[in-house]
């Protein structure tokens, strides 16, 4: 038996998880599968299309519950998206589910033309996104899916941060009349929202208030921002945390509010620093004439290190401690006040 992989949460971070009372949930992928089965029981239009990805997509139970509504296309992502577009054009509601790295790159022309340009209500589900497949290398990392899709018109891009956002995003996608992209990782997520949180695609959710610095984050890294905010608060810094679950359409009002109310803004994403959430937020702020200290935390433009998702997050500073340090640096304050720095000396 090998030792369990080290958690992305340090012992110190786990103390803050405890203090905030965060409850562990399940992987967003499992929440997707569970929600979809529930919805499909009521909506006969819902079908699932997979490219040898039913297991990775946690969709085996869907296929067992609705065997006639699960279309397997084999390892053929272009065909996956084309078939989904055809199904949507004849009245079905297809959830085309495939590893994000292949779905959004191999089939990007089908996404652009057959789905978005033809405007058929396909839901594209990118699974094991970001560095979920960290140890498998760059072929399996999906760090430019958001950049690719942001440049294609007529698609809503949603990256849920926890099971609650996932469930609500899947329900919204099932009702959508236009294309939607959902992006899921495969790590279990802490629950950040109550079940009755107001969730609307295109409207960010402010998880924590504060006016010193704003973390604007998306997806599986939002929890680290929340922990960093709690950590910083003990040392006199009040940080706001925004879950920007919808990358397109972007919640411009929430970004402008952060830029105007806070002394600095940090964006955080499990994505390349090029073309993702950070650049989108920067464009909003600059075009509104708001110049605040600003930093994009993401995966830099280099051959990404390999290892577990936790290893890669630690390597690139997508952790509570590292985000807290970045916040202090951006505010012009000494990082020495943070106790983990003392320990590291």
């Amino acid at each position, binding site marked *: 038996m090998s030792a369990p992989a080290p958690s992305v949460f340090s012992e110190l971070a786990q103390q803050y998880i405890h203090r905030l009372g965060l409850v562990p949930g399940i992987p967003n992928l499992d929440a997707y599968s569970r929600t979809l089965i529930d919805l499909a029981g009521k909506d006969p239009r819902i079908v699932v299309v997979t490219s040898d990805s039913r297991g990775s997509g946690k969709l085996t139970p869907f296929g067992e519950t609705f065997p006639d509504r699960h279309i397997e296309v084999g390892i053929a992502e*272009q065909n996956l998206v*084309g*078939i989904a577009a055809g*199904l949507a054009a*004849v009245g079905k509601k297809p959830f085309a589910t495939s590893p994000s790295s292949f779905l959004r790159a191999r089939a990007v022309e089908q996404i652009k033309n057959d789905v978005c*340009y033809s405007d058929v209500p396909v839901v594209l589900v990118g699974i094991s996104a970001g560095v979920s497949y960290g140890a498998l290398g760059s072929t399996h990392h999906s760090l430019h899916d958001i950049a690719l899709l942001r440049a294609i018109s007529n698609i809503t891009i949603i990256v849920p941060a926890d099971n609650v956002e996932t469930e609500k995003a899947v329900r919204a996608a099932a009702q959508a009349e236009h294309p939607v992209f959902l992006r899921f990782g495969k790590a279990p997520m802490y629950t950040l929202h109550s079940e009755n949180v107001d969730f609307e695609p295109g409207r960010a959710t402010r998880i924590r208030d504060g006016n010193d610095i704003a973390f604007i984050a998306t997806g599986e890294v939002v929890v680290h921002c929340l922990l960093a905010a709690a950590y910083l608060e003990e040392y006199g810094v009040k940080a706001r945390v925004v879950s920007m679950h919808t990358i397109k359409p972007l919640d411009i009002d929430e970004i402008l509010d952060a830029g105007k109310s806070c002394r600095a803004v940090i964006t955080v994403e499990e994505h390349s620093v090029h073309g993702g959430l950070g650049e989108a937020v920067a464009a909003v702020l600059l075009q509104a004439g708001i110049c605040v200290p600003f930093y994009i935390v993401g995966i830099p433009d280099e051959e990404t290190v390999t290892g577990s998702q936790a290893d890669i997050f630690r390597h690139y500073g997508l952790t509570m401690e590292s985000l807290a340090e970045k916040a202090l640096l951006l505010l012009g304050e000494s990082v020495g006040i943070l106790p983990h720095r003392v320990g590291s000396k």
Partner: protein
Amino acid sequence: MTRMSDLELELKSVRYRRAILKYIKRANAGHTGGSLSCVDILNVLYNRILRVSPETFYSPHRDRYIHSKGHSVEALYVVLADRGFFPESELETLCKYRSPFIGHPTRKVPGIEMNTGALGHGLSISVGMAIGGKMDKASYRVFTLLGDGELAEGSNWEAAMAAAHYKLDNLMAIVDKNRLQITGPTSVVMNIDPLADKFNAFGWTVREVDGHSITDLNRVLSMPPKPGVPTVVIAHTVKGKGLSFMEGDPKWHHGVPNDEQYQQAMQELEQQEREILAKMAFLEKPLETQCNHQE
């Protein structure tokens, strides 16, 4: 179908060719060669085979047609206009600023199901539509027109595999095999032959047809599908068909005739029209008159 009704469609084909040239000339842009190679196929599809009309276009039971070789859209526009999907005069705006009649099919044009134009997309879309039809036990069929140059796109073969796997006997693909693409002969650019063997190996029923013979097209496109098997019709065509100076010359892939060539084209088409009208007039006469005439 009678010889007379085939002649009526032959006459339509000549008129379609004239309209294709007219609007391409006016727009000073268009895919002339490919439109002329596929127009007889579209003629038979829309006038004989497809169960779709302007009145039924929004019915879920209609037959679907996907124009996968999207660049030959001028032929499709002309046929749709003739079928009453929109007034032909709207084609005056072809390729003009903000016209819905652009150089590839879009759903902004009544009668068009999907936006196509990038090659290698239509067959997958058609497979999806046919799977949807099977799920609903619907009576509609799905037809798509592919180019032979287009078949170099690997996505077609992903879709071909899936069509046989899902036993899509409600799907018919037609290949406009005009043997030319923009660079030159398909056999030189990237040989697609033996095409029938390829589709056979993928588990399809393969039929071959003279893609310019209305009678032959009508016979082959009307054949019932083999249960559980998708059908491909390989239509042997000539790029630029109908105009002596265009036939078989790859430069007419998206060539636009100059004034002199346009005049010549119109003259050739008028001559073809006169010949068909003469045949029709002949057939309209009582049988004994015809016999006497032949003596």
